[in-house]
């Protein structure tokens, strides 16, 4: 049961002109896992998320979610099926209050009678009750990111894609966010897929890690394997010989 796969991509490819942003990526995500997706800048992580959530249509390959081919479906239909996401640059509803923003997400699966319960649950879970009446434009970065996660979680997805939620947070805020995400995964059985640059967060949170470089999947495995993988180190730091010659030169 635990190893049942929820998302599968096969030969997923996306090109922008001459640049192949995502190149023949095959990966599987299992139910209730916490997956990390890492890679240097421009590795194609965000494009990969866009392909899964329907914001961009791949040139080749397929995305299968719970046995349904969602490759060409529109984002709102994919959300109805059970995938939601957050954005790298927070896309907040600035004119809305925190509560209203979460309500938009909660309407995904709840009618008018039940929606308030869901909103209250999300506010409580992410400890946003004190700021529920604040306008989103008045919030600081860490609250804003939390609201965005709460908003996406309120749609009651089965798979939640988090695009750099940790970026720009302080160490304490990061630890708090990590424990909340872990709790979310345990209590609601939501599968999480985390794109992150902050290694502390990836290594501490994720059960399995995929590494993308220049659009290709170069490694996958548990965190300890990844941190010792030669190709991953090369992708991040360059080849040893090169770094030596450049330091002497």
């Amino acid at each position: 049961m635990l190893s049942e796969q929820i998302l599968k991509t096969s030969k997923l490819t996306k090109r922008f002109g001459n640049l192949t942003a995502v190149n023949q990526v095959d990966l599987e995500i299992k139910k209730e896992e916490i997956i990390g997706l890492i890679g240097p800048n421009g590795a194609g992580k965000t494009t990969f998320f866009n392909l899964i959530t329907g914001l961009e249509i791949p040139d080749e390959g397929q995305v299968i979610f719970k046995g349904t081919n969602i490759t060409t479906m529109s984002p709102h239909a994919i959300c109805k099926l059970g995938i939601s996401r957050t954005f790298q640059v927070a896309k907040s509803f600035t004119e809305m209050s925190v509560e209203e923003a979460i309500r938009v997400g909660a309407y995904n699966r709840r009618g008018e009678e039940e929606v308030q319960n869901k909103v209250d649950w999300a506010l409580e879970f992410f400890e946003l009750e004190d700021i529920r009446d604040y306008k989103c434009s008045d919030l600081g970065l860490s609250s804003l990111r939390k609201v965005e996660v709460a908003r996406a979680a309120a749609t009651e997805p089965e798979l939640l894609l988090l695009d750099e939620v940790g970026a720009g947070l302080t160490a304490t805020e990061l630890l708090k966010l990590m424990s909340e995400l872990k709790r979310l995964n345990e209590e609601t059985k939501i599968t999480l897929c985390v794109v992150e640059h902050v290694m502390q967060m990836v290594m501490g949170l994720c059960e399995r890690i995929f590494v993308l470089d220049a659009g290709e999947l170069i490694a996958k495995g548990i965190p300890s394997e990844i941190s010792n993988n030669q190709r991953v180190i090369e992708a991040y730091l360059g080849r040893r010989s090169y770094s030596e010659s450049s330091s002497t030169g």
Partner: protein
Amino acid sequence: MNRKKNHNLENLLLLFFLVIALFVPLIFGSNQYNILLVTTVLIYGVMATSWNIIGGLAGQLDLASFAYLGLGAFTSSTLFIRFNFTPWIGMILGGLVAVAFALLIGFPLFRFRIREVWYALTTCALVEILKVVFNMWEEVGGPVERFLPYFSGSLYHMRFGSYVPYYYLILGMLVIALLVNSRIARSKLGFYLKALGEDETAAEVLGVNTRACKLRALVYYAFLIGVTGAIYANIYGYVHPSFFNGQESIKIAILGIVGGRGITYGPLLAALLLVGTQEFLRASLGGEVSGLYLVIYSVILILVVLFKPSGIATFFQYRNKKPAKQEVKKKSVV
């Protein structure tokens, strides 16, 4: 807590306005010209309130309001003139024709993701195109005014000897427009519209079918204005292609923005203040200093945009801003 207080204040203000509005004909009743002026102000109020659905809540800068007004007017009046058809049903049909046209235009517009300034330009062009079409379409429009048959008082033909019944008719439309507005604003559709108005991509991944929601908003808007258009033709007693008025369509959008986007009674407030002042000044100063009313109108407009860009209606809204600012400070320190 805050929001409840807000709603009570809003309702109280609206109720106050309605009670005064009911008695207006008793004050101006002896002077038909004044009644017509007040009715004109209310027509702008209805149109701006309807515009609030697509322009305020959904954030689409629609500049085609008089296209739907004209369609409603021509549908009802043509049926009236040619077939002696009662405008009471004609106005519903006028609304439906406006809706059909809105769907015809809205579907491809939203399908091909025309938004922001491009949406504004397209809808702006729409009014002008319809004006030309109706100028050339001799069977229905043509360059000469088509007058509605005169009756000194016929309920069946919606022709009255006085402007007072029209005034109440438009007031009724205004109440309907306000109710539709506030119902939408508090429903799922309203939240979805506000969300997509701010960020369509963010709304989509939260399960909002942005295309369908925008179309629904457009339908409500077109229907309300289409029906108003039929009454409009009856008030002035004729139809003419100049009903498709691009400049006045922009004015409706201005009223909606100045009043406060997304606030139910905001556009009405702006219409009362701006169009009210304008019509009053035109009537009282028009003979002496022609054009002065436009100067004063513009000055008021500039003042509002400068000092209250979020809208006149926000004067009556309080949201606790202080703690929010403190929170921002705290974050920046950490």
